[in-house]
């Protein structure tokens, strides 16, 4: 399940939904707002999300992960709005019988979410400037998805 939220992400609550008596492994990833990017001191971040397509594209990514790896449950939640340093911007959680699938699916989901969902981040710097993040070198983690439109043009943040 893919969800966009405007309030704080609570991993400990999200984790509950992935529990399963058949699950032997649980892998999770969180993207945190850090105080520096590309040599600039970051004060806070602003996420703009086009929710209808962020959700449908996120659901597609999760479905792809479930098809590629034997997972039991997989979810992703992404924040929208203004975030401070240290806050959680995105959470991915995957449970599976064995750890390999949980790790691989978790990594797949975060890599794809970053390059495919209509989400943009504007960095506000300590010097008063701000800017939309859109660096070319960040597409290096994109996977090849034969069914995805525009796969060659995917560009994303570099966290």
């Amino acid at each position: 399940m893919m969800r966009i939220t405007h309030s704080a992400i609570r991993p400990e609550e999200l984790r509950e939904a992935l529990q399963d008596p058949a699950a032997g492994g649980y892998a999770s990833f969180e993207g945190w707002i850090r105080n520096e990017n590309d040599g600039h001191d970051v004060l806070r971040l602003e996420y703009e999300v086009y929710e209808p397509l962020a959700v449908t594209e996120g659901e597609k990514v999760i479905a792809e992960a479930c098809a590629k790896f034997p997972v039991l449950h997989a979810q992703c939640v992404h924040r929208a709005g203004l975030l401070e340093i240290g806050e959680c911007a995105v959470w991915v959680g995957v449970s599976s019988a064995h750890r390999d699938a949980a790790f691989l699916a978790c990594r797949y989901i975060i890599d794809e979410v970053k390059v495919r969902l209509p989400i943009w981040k504007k960095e506000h710097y300590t010097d008063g400037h701000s800017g939309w993040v859109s660096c070319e070198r960040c597409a290096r983690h994109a996977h090849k998805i034969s069914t995805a439109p525009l796969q060659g043009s995917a560009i994303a943040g570099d966290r």
Partner: protein
Amino acid sequence: MSKTLTVRYFAGFREHAGLGEETVSLNAATARDVFDQLQTRHGSAEPLAHCKVAINDEMADWNSPVRDGDTILLFPPVAGG
């Protein structure tokens, strides 16, 4: 040949164009034509290869045909996570 299209801009595109949505009449066969013509109109320089497009809330290809009445969503380079 002219089509009436609703175009929506996001993030940096919205700030650059100074508006989030506009209705335009264009001689455009594909999403690529829409992008090219509006980029010229708004003086933007973002390479098309870094951007994405959706038509009527479905992710689309730059070669996707546009039809009269379509809503075109122009996405600058995304940066989730």
